[in-house]
């Protein structure tokens, strides 16, 4: 085993036997708040020890923020006028 591998193995054991790959698979469950307590603790231990996973989690959060800020397009005036016209007719009925 190379020193890097030994470090990896140690990390894995310390991080509640959760690999980085497993952590990334669980990120949405973590963010949704639906993760069982014990797993949540393992997840957080790994996160505390692993900069790569912390960065990844932050990237996921920023991805979600970006999606939440996507601008909407305004209503084309012709369609707006048409809908208001229909509203007037609906009102008369």
């Amino acid at each position: 085993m190379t020193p890097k591998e030994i470090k990896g193995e140690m990390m894995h054991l310390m991080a509640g036997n959760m690999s980085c790959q497993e952590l990334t698979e669980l990120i949405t469950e973590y963010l949704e708040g639906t993760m069982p307590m014990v797993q949540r603790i393992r997840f957080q231990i790994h996160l505390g020890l692993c900069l790569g996973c912390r960065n990844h989690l932050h990237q996921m959060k920023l991805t979600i923020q970006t999606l939440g800020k996507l601008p909407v397009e305004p209503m084309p005036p012709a369609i707006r006028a048409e809908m208001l016209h229909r509203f007037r007719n609906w009102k008369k009925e």
Partner: protein
Amino acid sequence: MGVFHKHESEPGFWKPPKGFMCMTESTHQQVRTPAPQWSNEQVLLDGLRIGNEEAFAYLLDAYYGQLLRVAMSHVPSRAVAEEVVQETWQGVLESLPRFEGRSSLKTWLFRILTNRAKTRGKRESRYESMDSEEGESEGWTDPDRFIPGGGLQGHWRVQPTPWDDLTPERLLLSKESRRLIQIAIDALPPVQRQVMMLRDIEDVDANEVCNLLDITETNQRVLLHRARTKVRCAIDAQLSETDKNE
């Protein structure tokens, strides 16, 4: 100039600036933009029921863009999505007398829209690819980023680098970035796209999304996870492209 300047002819008398408390009777006529009371849902609904055109205009302006993009996550073309949105407004007027306000207005609009979009989507056969989506839910989401075997199995091949906190704002300022994000969303399998649209883009809660799309909680989460993973990847590619050019 300070707001609390004194009126010249009457020492000690405070003259309200233009537009101050614009709902008071004296300045009422000056208000040109749609009256702010429509942002209160109950007031808006009452306005719609009595046929107040300003209330309907407010509803159109507030929800058109959102309804259109949700519709587009269901049907194959913009033209069809436009039709679905128009049918939705029609549906809103028809079911207005029966709406009791137990859900939020937005939820109610999305329900009407989703029902119509589903009917259209089925007709336009956009739901066929549901099978491929289920097949996709096997295995790892992002396998290439991890070491496949040996002592470092499951560790990052290349550690993710931090993104700047202002990434969302920066991306959305650039037309090209917005376009690339949109392409990534459009490329998602239909139900992944629909879940992402409602959850992350329109901020609908998980339970309501399960109801709207008729999927289980677990399924919703898996679809959302896959969609987010792909869009993250698209943004990452976009960011490293920008870095290269700088």
